[in-house]
């Protein structure tokens, strides 16, 4: 018999074994190889964007018309573009702009989506159908087309305006997710008991409903950031995004619309394309990992 075991020891052991749902989620996430690989890759990409000035001392916007479309050399690791700007510096600094746009547009879209989804899901009734019909309507136009249409109406595209435009064309998906979670959570006993105790609507929303819906919100926000980066690069590619000479990955790729650059200078357009691909792939892996971590059943349903 184990009578001589110190009771406080046993207690301590149990405390170590018992884990909160959040710790369990972190544990599941860390066990997912793809998600961790994605996390490391994304971190490296973000670090190279932050520390761009340490990795190159060339100004990415400085044009030199005597040195256009140069092949890679020790001065210009990836050569120069059609205006004589250094491609390697543009790749690093372009990552900054592309990531910042992706992140801030995602945050903006997230705020609109969570606010509308919360109102629709919590209050229901007329306001719910109003918001949801409007969301359906926004989804009826491909967001790429809608964003381009709005860009055509405004005069000059700045980064802030661009973020605003792509955010207001992508929120309805989040609205649907948040509303869906709220509709099921609203009927649960713990909400009923909070109501019975006289909790205000605000308290119920922020203390009871939102924390329980946080899993799907984070997962979809992550995936939305990937969408935003693709959207930015696509719009910049056709020359309707961030205006030159500001470097973004999409702007760099738009150079490849020139068949000569496409043919002779793959070192100019392949790296920014691969950077987008790697970033989006990493974000998607992280998103999938988060989904499995928050909802372990989902991994059994699909891969």
């Amino acid at each position, binding site marked *: 018999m184990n009578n001589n075991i110190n009771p406080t020891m046993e207690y301590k052991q149990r405390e170590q074994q018992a884990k909160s749902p959040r710790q369990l989620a972190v544990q599941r996430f860390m066990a997912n190889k793809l998600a961790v690989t994605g996390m490391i890759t994304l971190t490296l990409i973000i670090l190279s964007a932050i520390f761009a000035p340490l990795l190159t001392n060339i100004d990415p916007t400085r044009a030199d018309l005597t040195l256009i479309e140069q092949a890679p050399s020790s001065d210009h690791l990836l050569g120069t573009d059609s205006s004589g700007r250094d491609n390697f510096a543009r790749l690093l600094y372009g990552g900054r702009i592309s990531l910042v746009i992706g992140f801030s547009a995602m945050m903006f879209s997230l705020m609109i989506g969570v606010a509308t989804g919360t109102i629709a899901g919590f209050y229901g009734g007329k306001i719910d159908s109003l918001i949801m*019909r*409007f969301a*359906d*309507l926004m989804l*009826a*136009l*491909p*967001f*790429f*087309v*809608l964003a*381009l*249409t*709005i*860009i*055509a*109406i405004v*005069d000059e595209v700045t980064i802030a305006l661009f973020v605003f435009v792509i955010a207001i064309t992508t929120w309805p998906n989040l609205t649907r997710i948040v509303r869906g979670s709220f509709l099921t959570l609203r009927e649960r006993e713990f909400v009923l008991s909070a109501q019975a105790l006289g909790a205000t609507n605000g308290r119920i929303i922020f203390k009871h409903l939102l924390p329980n819906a946080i899993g799907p919100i984070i997962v979809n926000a992550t995936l939305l950031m*990937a969408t935003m980066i*693709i959207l930015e*690069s*696509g719009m910049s*590619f*056709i*020359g*309707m995004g961030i205006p030159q000479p500001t470097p973004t990955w999409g702007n760099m*790729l738009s150079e*490849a*619309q020139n*068949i000569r650059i*496409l*043919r002779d200078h*793959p070192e100019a*357009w392949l790296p920014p*394309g691969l950077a*987008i*691909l790697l970033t*989006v*792939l990493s974000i*998607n*892996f992280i998103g999938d990992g988060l989904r499995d971590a928050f909802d372990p059943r989902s991994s059994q*349903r*699909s*891969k």
Partner: protein
Amino acid sequence: MARYIIRRLLVFIPMLFLLTLIIFSLAKAAPGDPLTGKQLDPTVSKEVYEIQREELGLNDPLPTQYWNWLSSFTSGDFGQSMYYNGRSVESLISSRLLNTVYLGILAYLITLAVSIPLGIYSARRPYSLLDNTATTFGFVGLAIPNFFFGLIGIYIFSIHLGWFPSQSTMSDPLLTGIPAFMDRLHHMILPAITLAMAGTATYMRYVRSEALDILGSEYIRMAKAKGMKERTVLYKHTLRNALIPIITLSGYEFGILLGGAVITEQVFNYSGLGMLFIESIVNRDYPVIMAINLLLGATILLGNLLSDILYSVADPRIRYD
């Protein structure tokens, strides 16, 4: 089910109406109107300008303007291009629309031809080499921007191998009959594969996870237990049921293909609706932009309606109250 379809139709009509309202607001928010050019023209006096404004109804209250705009739209009059000196919008659109429709159909056929077999075979041998390859392909297919994929396609297959042309819809407009068809098809293959990429990856994942679910179900075990051949089980029982999500998605696919065509056509200089849209954006040709928006929106709403109806037809297990 009939009641469900009727109710769904009743939602569709006000949605279409709201869509026109939004597009009209966007059109009004756009700077300039059909007479902006004349206002700057010194040979046109202010009085003539005002009379023309009055005649075109530009001084009417907004609801009246909206009503006139809507009724001309429904009678097939989409107005006139501001850029191509008064060419009618419908002639501009109709000259491009068919190219995009052909491209969309080919892309959809590629999507189905690749995703269904891959999905089914991956599900039959999960975690095999084929499954892992297909899964990797799926991840990359969803993450790669289609214009970058298109550029790589041009770089490899047009520039280096010379298998496919990288530009335009045909090489010789004088060709007729079979050679013309083959020429067009030859020009369409790279853009169609590019356009099909994202859809193929999505469909493959759906078919795989659906087929995995089905292969683990009781009726498949039953079919195997009574000695049915593997092929029959796979094609007759599994495949048919795994196609349900595909049928449902097909209506939504309209929107995805049309949206994707905008940028794909730009990469391949393929003269379709998407390229017309970009040209109109660059030229700030608002009547064309709004007409294409309306056309896309209406098509997508119709596609969603179709998806919902097909879903209720394809899967009798779904019940509606």
